[in-house]
Structures are given as C-alpha cells and as structure tokens.
C-alpha cells in the first residue's frame, strides 16, 4: 500500500468517526462506500497484473517450445534436406555430363563419315569415279546407314536420359521451398523472443506440426516412420492391395 493510499484511508477513517459522533448517518454511509471502493480497485489492479503475468508466461512457454522444436528437429532435418538437394543436383549434373560425353564422339564420327561420303558422292555425280571405287563406296554407304541407325538410337536414348535427369529441379524446388518456410518461421520466432525476453519455462517438445502435404521423401529424414513409399514398386503393391 502506498503512502497516498494510507493517507486517504486515514482521512476517510477520521471523517467516519466524526460523522458517527455527530450521528450523521448519511455521511457515514457515504464514507463507508468510499472505503469499500478504494479496497476493490486495489484488488482489481492486482488481479489484472497477475492475469497479464500469466498470459505472458503462457506465451513465452509456447514460443520456447516452438523454438526448441525448430532447433531440435527442423534444423537438422533441413540440413539433411539440403544435403539431399546437393546429391540430387550432383547426380543430375553427372548423368547429363556422362550422356553428353558419350554422345559427342558418336555425333563427331557420324559427321566425319557424312562429310567423307558426300565428297565421294559428289565425285560420282560428276562422273569422276572409277567403277571399282564406286563398288567400294556402295559398301561404305550400306555400312554407314546401318551404323547411323544404331548411333541415332543411342542419341535418342541419351537425350531421353538427359531429359529425365532434369526432373531433379521439381524435387529440389519443393525441398528448398520447405527450407525457406523453416527459415522464415525461425526468424519470426527469434524476433518474438527478443521482443518478450524473459520466460524461463523449460521447453517441452510440441506435437509434430506436419503439413497435410509432406512433399518429396528425403531418405533418412522422412522414411523413419516407415509409412512412405520409397519406390514405385511400393506404390504399386499398396494400390494392388486396395484392389487396383
């Protein structure tokens, strides 16, 4: 109780005694009401203060728990996810480069042979070719056709492989988007913590906040619970068990 409050109460008490001694009932009642009101307002203030304190501690507590989960689970998870992005992009780059390295010599040889044969063909058209050489050229052309067919087949296969190798972009894009969301969550959490510094409640693990769509399965992170299909075969098995 402050000094002011004390003085106010003392004054009210003196006035009350005076009123009672002079048998002024109306004045006495009024003073009694004033004393009660003073009492009530102090009580309400105290209840209000306690409520605010409780509210703040509750907030701090859930924030602490959220931050703890971020650091304990989500950040190591994010590291795994980013490593997976590295390995996927590396794999894509390697397989693309591999196909290109295989196919460049193939296309070079085909080109050289085409140049050589077209030179001979021009000479034949200009009637500048002995019959013996023409016979040899015919054999060369036959061989060239069959080799071209084979080589273009491998070019076709290689190009499809290169095409497929680009599918990493979709997967890594989804994973990186998730990590960006995590970084944003972390940032918001830290800003909030700085703002309301305090709160010593021991953080507890909150329930996992998995979204409805967990996205690409990152090996070693998402397949721990053994409730995901790791290969197309798993999907096919599951669907056929459902009568598909």
């Amino acid at each position, binding site marked *: 109780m402050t000094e002011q409050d004390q003085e106010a109460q003392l004054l009210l008490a003196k006035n009350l005694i005076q009123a009672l001694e002079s048998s002024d009932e109306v004045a006495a009642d009024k003073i009694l009401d004033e004393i009660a009101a003073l009492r009530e307002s102090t009580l309400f203030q105290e209840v209000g203060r306690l409520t605010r304190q409780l509210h703040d501690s509750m907030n701090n507590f859930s924030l602490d728990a959220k931050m703890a989960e971020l650091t304990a689970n989500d950040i190591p998870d994010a590291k795994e996810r980013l490593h997976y992005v590295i390995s996927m992009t590396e794999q894509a780059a390697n397989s693309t480069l591999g196909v290109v390295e295989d196919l460049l010599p193939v296309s070079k040889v085909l080109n050289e042979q085409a140049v050589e044969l077209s030179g001979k063909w021009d000479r034949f058209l200009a009637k500048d070719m002995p019959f013996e050489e023409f016979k040899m050229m015919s054999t060369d052309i036959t061989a060239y056709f069959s080799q071209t067919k084979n080589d273009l087949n491998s070019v076709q296969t290689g190009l*499809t492989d290169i*095409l*497929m190798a*680009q*599918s*990493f*972009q*979709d*997967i890594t*894009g*989804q994973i990186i988007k998730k990590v960006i969301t995590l970084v944003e969550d972390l940032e918001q959490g830290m800003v909030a913590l700085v703002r309301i510094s305090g709160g010593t409640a021991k953080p507890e693990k909150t329930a996992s906040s998995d979204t409805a*769509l*967990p*996205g*690409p*399965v990152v090996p070693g992170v998402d397949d721990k619970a053994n*409730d*995901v*299909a*790791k*290969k*197309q075969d*798993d*999907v096919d098995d*599951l*669907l056929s068990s*459902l009568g*598909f």
Partner: protein
Amino acid sequence: MVLDRNMKILVVDDFSTMRRIVKNLLRDLGFTNTFEADDGKTALPMLQTGNFDFLVTDWNMPGMTGIELLKAVRADPKLAKLPVLMVTAEAKREQIILAAQTGVNGYVIKPFTAITLKEKIGKIFERIEG
C-alpha cells in the same frame, strides 16, 4: 494393345520443368496432342471445355491441388469418367490411399522413369478398354 496416339492430354504441374519432361516423355511415347496447366484452378475450366481424353496431374500445387482437381473431376458428370494419372512426390501411404479412394486411375511417384510412365499409361487404358 492399341492406344489412340491422337488423344488429347492435359499435363498439370506447377513446375514448368516437370511439365516439359512429362510432355517430352509423352511425345516419345507417340502422344503429341498435349496441353499444359500450372494448377487445378487453371486446369479445371480447360477440362470442362476442352474434350480431353486423359489427365496427368501433380498433387502439391498452389491454388488448387491435384487431389482437389481430382475430386472436382469426379464430381462433374461430364468429366467423371476421365482417366487420371497422378505424378507426384507425395509418397505417404495415407496419401496414396486417399488418391485411390478419390478415384485416381494410376499413381506414379517422383522421381520416375520413362518406362514407369509408359507402363502406367498402358495399364490405365488397358483397364478401361478391358
């Protein structure tokens, strides 16, 4: 089995790279009549007016997801029988089951191979014809 190589196909994915890959694979398989949409919201009106024969859709897309698109397709009397292949990174058991219950005709998880895609498309039409 003979597939109609002229059938009209809609490929729905929010990643343009993935749309290009699927389109190229389909072309490799002989299907050239392909169109693209980047989420369910864009895809649905196209399906409703476009006389499509086949829908290939991703699941996780902003706007309208693939499963919502599938639900909308199955709820539309004109589209209810449209064959739908889901090509997605979502591999949780419960999600595959949900897709099956919603009426998907095939489910391929990313990353996938050209052979898998070909096989699933073949199976879908085999079942429809059979």
